[in-house]
């Protein structure tokens, strides 16, 4: 294997650096033969979680299929920053049609590949959270229900960032967006709304559903590879912080994503056939304040008029996730520490 030294600086985490792993376990990005599915030169913002997630996910899919991937893209940041005519960052066959139809277009691609006898070529569809949980939801549910042979990846940055940071059904409560301003008695997004797409996907009984964050790219790669071992409809929901929309520092993207997981606000798990088969335990639990306070979209909760009541409601959501998925396991945690 051709390799080059890649330095990973791990801060405040137990994640194992690439340099400590054997060649076979290293990320695909450390391999000079990586696909570079989405290549450098695109126009993503500095610190864009989506660009990072897409690069790792697609290169992992390329490795898993020996380079036999066709990608379908919904309208959104990923599409816009990667293909300003006449340039393209894609080194794989790539099709963009509309905002709300990526799952159905992917169904069509998969059907055409089947009818053409190209059994080894696989289809990955990708969209942001708007293209997944809102405008693309009907087509996505249809694709799930038919169990079409498509891996659908949602890069969730919790809002319509491409159009200027508006609320989607994936925007969390209390978060400020351009359509849920931090004004009035209940500033930011409303509590009690929104869709939990991974659970909705599981309710379709599709063969594989998983969540991941860009804080654990090995985990993301492993889940993509697992997904490519399976045929039928598969869903991968990746949390990708957006420095612009979240008001977080662009060099903090990984850190923010890690805190989303470590606070319990974003449960990381995988499910097969509608049943949860594994969860990524919280290694060092943090209060939700640690996650919220470093993002300007939550600044109204901590300013001159702090809202500990709202923070407590968000903490309750994290606690509910921890209970639902069993994210904290004291015994396992201490055992791991001992090792």
């Amino acid at each position, binding site marked *: 294997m051709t390799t080059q030294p890649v330095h990973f600086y791990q801060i405040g985490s137990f994640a194992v650096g690439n340099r400590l792993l054997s060649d076979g376990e290293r990320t695909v990005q450390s391999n000079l033969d990586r696909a570079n599915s989405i290549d450098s030169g695109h126009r993503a913002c500095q610190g864009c979680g989506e660009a990072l997630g897409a690069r790792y996910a697609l290169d992992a899919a390329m490795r898993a299929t020996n380079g036999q991937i066709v990608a*379908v893209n919904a309208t959104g940041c990923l599409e816009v920053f990667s293909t300003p*005519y006449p340039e*393209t960052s894609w080194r794989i066959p790539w099709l963009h*049609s509309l905002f709300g139809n990526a799952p159905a277009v992917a169904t069509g691609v998969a059907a*055409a590949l089947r009818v053409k006898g190209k059994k080894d070529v696989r289809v990955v569809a990708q969209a942001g959270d708007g293209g997944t949980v809102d405008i693309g939801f009907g087509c996505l549910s249809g694709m799930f229900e038919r169990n079409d042979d498509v891996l659908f990846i949602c890069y969730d940055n919790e809002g319509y960032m491409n159009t200027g940071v508006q609320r989607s059904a994936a925007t969390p409560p209390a978060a400020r967006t351009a359509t849920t301003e931090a004004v009035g008695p209940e500033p930011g997004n409303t509590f009690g709304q929104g869709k939990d797409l991974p659970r909705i996907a599981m309710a379709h009984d599709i063969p594989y559903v998983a969540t991941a964050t860009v804080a654990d790219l090995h985990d993301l790669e492993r889940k993509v590879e697992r997904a490519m071992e399976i045929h039928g409809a598969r869903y991968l929901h990746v949390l990708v912080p957006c420095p612009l929309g979240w008001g977080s520092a662009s060099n903090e993207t990984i850190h923010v994503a890690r805190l989303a997981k470590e606070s319990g606000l974003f449960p990381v798990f995988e499910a097969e056939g509608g049943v949860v088969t594994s969860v990524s335990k919280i290694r060092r639990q943090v209060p939700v304040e640690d996650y919220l306070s470093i993002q300007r979209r939550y600044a109204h909760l901590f300013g001159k008029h702090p809202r500990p009541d709202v923070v407590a409601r968000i903490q309750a959501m994290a606690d509910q996730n921890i209970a639902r998925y069993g994210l904290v396991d004291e015994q396992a945690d201490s055992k791991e520490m001992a090792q």
Partner: protein
Amino acid sequence: MLRQIEGSRAVAETVALCRPEVVCAYPISPQTHIIEAVGAMVKAGELAPCEFINVESEFAAMSVAIGASATGARAYTATASQGLLFMMEAVHNAAGLGLPIVMTLANRAIGAPINIWNDHSDAMAVRDSGWIQLFAESNQEAADLHVQAFRLAEELSVPVMVCMDGFILTHAVEGVDILDQSFVDSFLPPYEPRQVLDTNDPVSIGAMVGPEAFEEVKYLAHLRQLDALERIPAIAKEFADATGRDSGGLVRPYRTEDADIIIVALGSVLGTIKDAVDIRREAGESVGVVGITSFRPFPAEAVREVLCEARQVVVVEKAFSIGFGGVLSTDVAMAMQGVETRLRTVVAGLGGRSITRRSLEELIGTAGRGELEALTFLDLDHGAVERERTRMSETRRSGPSAENLLRDRGAAVTAPVKEQA
């Protein structure tokens, strides 16, 4: 082989002869019989290899067709009315991407009020989408046009919509000569896309294009439609030479020689108009009719050529632009620029109202006397409209009128409207 067969069945069997590789379907009347029949053929293994996909909406149907076509598969779907509007974003997208998808449009009115019967409002709503739109006069032509449509679409890299009147054609049983597989295979070579999603030669399709090139991209689409003005009659001629059948083409004149009055229309109503023309000709009136088969691209030159000698042109259309008037009429008027003629619009047959031969004969008579107004609504119940306007003027409240008009219609046999209101 000539068979007594339902229009939808004839279309389904002909589409199957075209060897589509991906067919996606969402049911909407009056298109259902077409996709049911294609689906059964795929399920029985008579049409193979072909993927038949039951989707969750028309928007998905066109989107699946887009994905399949971009991956190099011959793709087909069918829809009507609300379904066409629901997929409209993808309809424009398919044309913009230059994907040679063929779709049957079983023409049906657009609500509200909801109405499942025939008119041309649906086709008119997408006339600017970049699709070629061919209108069938009969079930024979509807079937034949599909073979020509795939050929045309794939030659020019433009999607083609075959418009056939809902129920009037789709559900009518009449004699149709279904083509042979060997002929269709010789007429329609396999689909070889210019650009395809291929892992051996990766391309990006659907990039963002800004002001620096967008106008050129759209102009190229226009040029392809102009190319179609050449290819449509050429393909129709080749088809006619092989089958002996006059199907397709740009325009179809009937008894227009030396005609003072020429009626212009689309679709199945041409049959009734021809009957009316025959009768009025026997009565000594100088009248003819022109059917427009290719609505997009609009054959302005051919239309002008066939209409330029007429003193009066009467466009009978099953759709109109609310707040203005005729849609087809506008195109005809543009084609007739600089030609001295009297252009009249007759809106008829909306929501499936029968266009009777008697009404058409009267229309020709009125036109002959020079009494036809610029915009006429054929067989409109002016009394019912006036009564509803009176009722509406009595209150400032807004809201739909459809139910009132139905009540008004029923009033003749049941209770007076006033008491119910």
